[in-house]
């Protein structure tokens, strides 16, 4: 807890409190895995109960989804670059890549919201059938995480500009990068087990 600074480590690992926070966040990610697994289980059980409503192949537009996937994949990469440059103590490059990450995330979110609006116009709402309820809640939970991540990232950018790179800001940066990569992992599974599966069947 006390500020015993160990300078041989990367900034984000230098203080005891930082190491506690990072471990704590990893464990939180374990909980997030369970949370999304539950949503996937729900989708796995309900995903074929169309109740006379639209089916996945009726509504999914794979091109849009592919663009969303690429945006998120790239943002995960740029986020990794931001952390890479943080470890080089290159604040400027770090910020540039981090803001690019943010913009890509916002782009993803924009595409996803557009996709949802499109579905609703087709008459596929979350009240239509069990399939659509589980679809919207799984996707919506992921989307809400991305939104939360973007707001959080903006707060962090402000703090970075105010305070520069310190062990505390570096730790926050590192933790948000874990969060962002994790959201990409979740998206990979959504892409595979929701969209691609829907196209196969």
């Amino acid at each position: 807890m006390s500020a015993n600074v160990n300078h041989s480590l990367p900034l984000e690992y230098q203080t005891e409190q930082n190491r506690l926070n990072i471990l704590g966040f990893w464990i939180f990610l374990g909980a997030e895995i369970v949370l999304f697994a539950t949503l996937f289980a729900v989708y796995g059980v309900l995903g074929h109960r169309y109740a006379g409503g639209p089916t996945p192949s009726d509504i999914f537009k794979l091109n849009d989804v592919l663009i969303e996937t690429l945006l998120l994949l790239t943002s995960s990469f740029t986020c990794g670059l931001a952390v890479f440059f943080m470890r080089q103590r290159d604040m400027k490059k770090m910020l540039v890549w981090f803001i690019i990450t943010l913009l890509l995330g916002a782009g993803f979110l924009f595409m996803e919201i557009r996709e949802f609006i499109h579905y609703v116009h087709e008459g596929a709402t979350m009240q239509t059938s069990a399939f659509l309820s589980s679809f919207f809640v799984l996707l919506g939970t992921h989307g809400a995480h991305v939104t939360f991540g973007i707001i959080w990232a903006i707060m962090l950018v402000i703090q970075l500009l105010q305070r520069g790179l310190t062990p505390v800001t570096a730790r926050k940066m590192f933790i948000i990068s874990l969060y962002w990569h994790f959201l990409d992992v979740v998206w990979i599974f959504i892409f595979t087990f929701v969209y691609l599966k829907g196209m196969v069947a």
Partner: protein
Amino acid sequence: MGIKWNEIFVGGDPLLVGSQIAIVLTVVAIVVGLTYFKKWGWLWREWLTTVDHKKIGIMYILSGVLMFFRGGMDGLLMKAQTARPEMNFLDAQHYNEIFTTHGVIMILFMAMPFLIGLMNVVVPLQIGARDVAFPQLNALSFWLFFSGAMLFNISFVVGGSPDAGWTSYFPLAGKEFSLGIGNNYYAIALQIAGLGTLMTGINFIVTILKMRAPGMTLMKMPMFTWTTFITSIIIVAAFPIFTVALALMTFDRLYGTHFFTLSSGGSDMLWANLFWLWGHPEVYIVILPAFGIFSEVIATFSRKTLFGYTSMVVSIVGIAFLSMIVWVHHFYTMDAGPAVNSFFSITTMLIAVPTGVKIFNWLFTMRKGRIQFTTAMLWALAFVPNFVIGGVTGVMLAMAAADYQYHNTLFLVAHFHYVLIPGVVFAVFAGLYYWWPKMFGFMLNEKLGKYHFWLFTIGFNVTFMPMFFLGLKGAVRRAYTYSAESGFAPLFLVSAIGSIILAIGFAVFCYNIYWSFRYAKRNVSHDPWDARTLEWMTASPVQFYNFAVVPEVKQLDAFWHMKKRGETLTLKESDIKKIHMPSNSGLPFYMAVVFGITGFFLVFEAHIAAAVAAIGIVIGLVIRSFDYNDGYYVSVDEIKRTERTWRNVEGGTENHVG
């Protein structure tokens, strides 16, 4: 904003009007009292904003006592209603609400805060830490739990109680069959409290992994710390499932989705599946810390180290692992086929193996020991035979084919009360009598404690033993009445009488707290029980920084061996360094208030108001993000002063055993 304020209070029933008046009077009395004695500032500084794990633990325990009272009242009302056949004391609706709140409150708002409270008080001390890993998060955990508990508890006077059972099975709990907002309370209040619990789990995993005193390897940790650690892991693995299940329930009830509905393709059994995926691990979340408490108490009062420490640890890990793969035994009768039922029968019965190992280890800890019958030890002793009855009936229930005849009968109800009351409530009492001097610096009265013990255990057996036989005779749970011809009447009457004895036992406990608070001797030693683990090495009550110098641990039962070597109270003042401590924060309390308000509006389906209130949550998060307060240092002088006071009176204090 969409709420019909004139309909908000539940009326009509004199019992309810009475409670409403009582609640208002109590609140007025508290407000007037605080103002008169000028205690608002004290309350805010010392309690509402505290991040001290010991104070948070005490607040958890206080909530537990309060909720035990509420849940116990519900239990007594149920017993009164079923004491005679065809009684009209409560109608069906009222009875349904009461057994629902009884279940929810006893598991989530009584057992959980008691155990998490004890964990909070004891675990950092046992591992020689200054606090938990994330003190402010810990405060947030408590306040969210408290907010959820309060939101749930107002349901019976504001808007109507949930009435679909503590399991809230769909489709009954859905809007198709339960139109009242009572079940919204269930979904939302439990969600808020559950968030707090999840954070507690993360907090304790990190605390135990990273903040142990030098030399304390994992296999030198006290057993209560071990069980807390494994419990926290189960919390992190299981609570997100509940979070999702409750969220889906909220969506179904508030936004018309079709997860668990009859219509449009929903699956009601999916709720049962998700509920028990969380619900079964939840049982172990409350049982495992209790096992830890018994391990500490039995070792201390047998004056021996725990027998088979390694196999104890292995069996806890085994139980944690198995707890995740037994959930279907709660609904064998849904007919998922013999293959599924066989698999879950086997995994369920296997849990008996590590549990049996623990029982024998406790027995052999006592063998060759010198068993001292303190009140704490009496609870631990009574636990063994009573829990064995719960355990063997559990194995009988685990056999899926046999369960077809027990399911949903009072046999099942008797079984789980025989597991949860000896396994949790006895443990809580044992832990409270044992650690009370550590928390408050005075003992609970041992003589009153023994009255409490005998009344409670006898009452417990008289209440629940008849239920086994009632179940075998065909009496089902949750039925508000039964016919005179059924032949259930004599046993139900015995059970009702037992519940009164049980209640008197609890009343004696409350009186004991009052009596001891007023009259108990204050010069209690820092180690009144001649105990074994590190928490007894520091002052009673514990100074806010826990340890002036963090001790070095060389083996299991570290403090015991230090005493043997005679090196406990020697503190070289030159070793004292300034101590870094976290600052108090009002943010957790603020968050609990906005969460509570948001939850309240959501319960009443006032979506816009809820959204507005939710902005308050976001504001709280932003404030937290920009909070760079890094705590403060306690000066060496202050530490020296504090240490001298309690170490000086050492000669004049009393050891209660020896």
